[in-house]
């Protein structure tokens, strides 16, 4: 009896080994990045040098934020553990080179999706995890209440190597205002220089302004002007030329958004396996063979939802509850008046 059990388990183990072997070679054949990630045992993720709500490390070195959660979702899907991510903080200047030169496999660093970046420099944008736009922060007592109040000679602090620099020029040029751009490599220096009074205004993505305002010595003395001068769809980026990896990252993000749409949360994901809705069942891996198409097992999406949560949970945890942007604005689901809309997972 005991012998039989032993023999049976060894047969099962053999099949298991064979099975993982076949899936691994299939995926490995298709995607070098996936193979390397599985071999290393962690996902290499490029993030910002500290932008609360998006990617920010606490004193103990734990990274949190909506951008961080995209990488965690991929780790949960590919490696089964959302904590197996190696984060590399990058400046705006370094980020694309780090990705194209194979230092990282995902760039999830509040990066604006533009045509030239997508087509010209070897990158592929997989989606949008935050719809943003560029705005201006000014001192409340300055009497400036709209971008129309800016006058020639205004000095604007901002980050180097961003779309912000270009939008700023377009904006001031269209108004015919001569301005002084003061560009720093790191966000902390921008904040410090603006705080000291070097600049009349601080301009970057509005989410960034909201997040960085907390770092000012008197946050209440400053305000963000109501106007938005550009479209800034922020999203994760991968290297061009690995379509399997691209799909994995894209659908890891999509899973989080779709899970919110169907009301699947980290708390109820397991129970949803018995749902009546086939879309929900597919989402938690109880129906269909969607994982195989990506070279993954069928529980990949369930792990994302259980370990990282859906998009709404991630937003609430990182951006709303921290007081950065309590109002979701355009980043609300399309069913609730926002523009978050992802293709169906089927």
């Amino acid at each position, binding site marked *: 009896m005991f012998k039989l059990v032993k023999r049976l388990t060894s047969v099962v183990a053999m099949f298991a080994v064979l099975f993982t072997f076949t899936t691994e070679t299939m995926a490995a054949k298709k995607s070098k990045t996936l193979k390397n990630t599985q071999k290393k045992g962690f996902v290499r993720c490029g993030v910002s040098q500290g932008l609360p709500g998006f990617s920010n490390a606490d004193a103990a070195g734990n990274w949190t934020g909506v951008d961080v959660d995209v990488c965690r979702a991929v780790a949960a899907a590919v490696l089964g553990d959302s904590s197996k991510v190696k984060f590399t903080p990058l400046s*705006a*200047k370094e980020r*694309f*080179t780090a990705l*194209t*030169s194979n230092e990282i496999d995902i760039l999830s660093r509040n990066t604006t999706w533009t045509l*030239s*970046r997508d087509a*010209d*420099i*070897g*990158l592929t944008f997989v989606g949008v995890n935050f719809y943003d736009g560029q705005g201006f922060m*000014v*001192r409340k*007592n*300055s*009497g*400036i209440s709209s971008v129309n*109040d*800016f*006058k020639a*000679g*205004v*000095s604007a*602090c901002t980050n*180097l*190597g*961003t779309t912000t*620099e*270009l939008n*700023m*020029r377009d904006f001031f*040029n269209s108004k015919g205002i001569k*301005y*002084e*751009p*003061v*560009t*720093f*490599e*790191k966000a902390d*220096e921008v904040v*410090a*220089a603006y705080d*000291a*009074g*070097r600049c*009349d205004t601080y301009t970057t993505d509005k989410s960034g302004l909201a997040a960085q305002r907390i770092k000012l010595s008197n946050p209440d003395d400053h305000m963000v002007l109501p106007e938005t001068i550009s479209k800034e769809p922020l999203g994760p980026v991968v*290297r*061009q*030329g690995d379509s399997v990896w691209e799909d994995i990252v894209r659908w890891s993000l999509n899973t989080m958004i779709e899970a919110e749409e169907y009301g699947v949360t980290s708390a109820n994901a397991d129970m949803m396996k018995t749902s009546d809705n086939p879309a929900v069942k597919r989402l938690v891996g109880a129906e269909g063979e969607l994982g195989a198409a990506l070279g993954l097992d069928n529980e990949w999406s369930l792990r994302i939802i259980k370990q990282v949560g859906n998009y709404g949970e991630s937003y609430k945890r990182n951006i709303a509850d921290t007081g950065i942007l309590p109002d979701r604005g355009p980043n609300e689901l399309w069913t609730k008046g926002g523009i978050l809309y992802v293709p169906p997972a089927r």
Partner: protein
Amino acid sequence: MNFKKILPQLLTLVVVILVFGFFSYNAQVNMENRGITFGYGFLSQESSFDVQFSLIEYDGSHSYFRAYLVGLLNTILVSVIGIIFATIIGVVVGIARLSSNYLIERTAAIYVEFFRNIPLLLQIFFWYFAALRALPLPEKAEPMFGVFFLTIKGFFVPAFVWNNLDIFIYSVIAAIIAIVFIRLYAKKKQENKGIQTPVLSISIGLLIILPLLSFFLGGVDASVEIPVIEQLSKTSFTFKGGLKLPPELISLALALSLYTATFIAECVRAGVQGVSKGQKEAAASIGLTPNQVLKLVVMPQALRIIIPPTTNQYLNLTKNSSLAAAIAYPDLVLVFAGTALMQTGRAIEIVSITMLTYLTLSITISIFMNWYNKKIAIKEK
């Protein structure tokens, strides 16, 4: 025998070619895989970003090449200012370290030890943010001599507005050429007849009289434009007119000079101490005054020791100026290897141009200093 001599060199050459070939092949393959094209055509495209401080006319409608020039000139500007001040401070402190006055000697020593042992980047941050904290807002700035305003937004100084500037420049050039000829003549006269000519006062006179003449006869006219305060909003002000030196330039030049001066001071001290005591005593014994001893005996010999290591410091200063990006001074690294690289994504092209540029700058300084070193070297007759 001959073959044995050449073989190691051949092998080295082959290895160098292989390594270089491997890297360029590797880059080529990877760029092809990711659909990245290679080329320098982007240099003529419109840059579409602005720069806060430029020596030549520039805005976003100019080309990337123009942006490169802006960055290069700003790098040269801060390096030249840095080198001049580092040399002045370095020489003064170096000589102060040899002073017999205990207090002066100690102060100089403490300065040297303090500033050369703190990382330069930290010093740059310190001077920049210290300056930003300490300097007044434009509306609160006290004018210096009525026309200079040192504020958090920059140092505003009066600017000259010229008419017929070219004639003025010609007159200065003419004065300089005349001075060179007079010096040559005076030297010959001293060698032949032993008569000394007051070259210095003649030179200064020429430098003043010729440009002055250009004002009266050449139609040159200069007026001074004084910066005037201007209100931007209820609480924010700036100055208009005149010339503006951004605080980034001032603090960067300050940090670079103070840091490099410590090394130059040590070079100067070593150079002066390197001249043997016997030389000074011998000079004194033939009746030279202390000033003449320093000028004719000690310094010419000390300079030979000082110049080579000081050249290194000039090179370091120029290269260190690339830390400018940290405090928003638009140097070559910030404008070209920063913003331009980001906007075009042409990493290999831009980094290679930047490297070549720094190499050229360094080699130019080296060549000049080597020429100067040769000029003051012992000429055996």
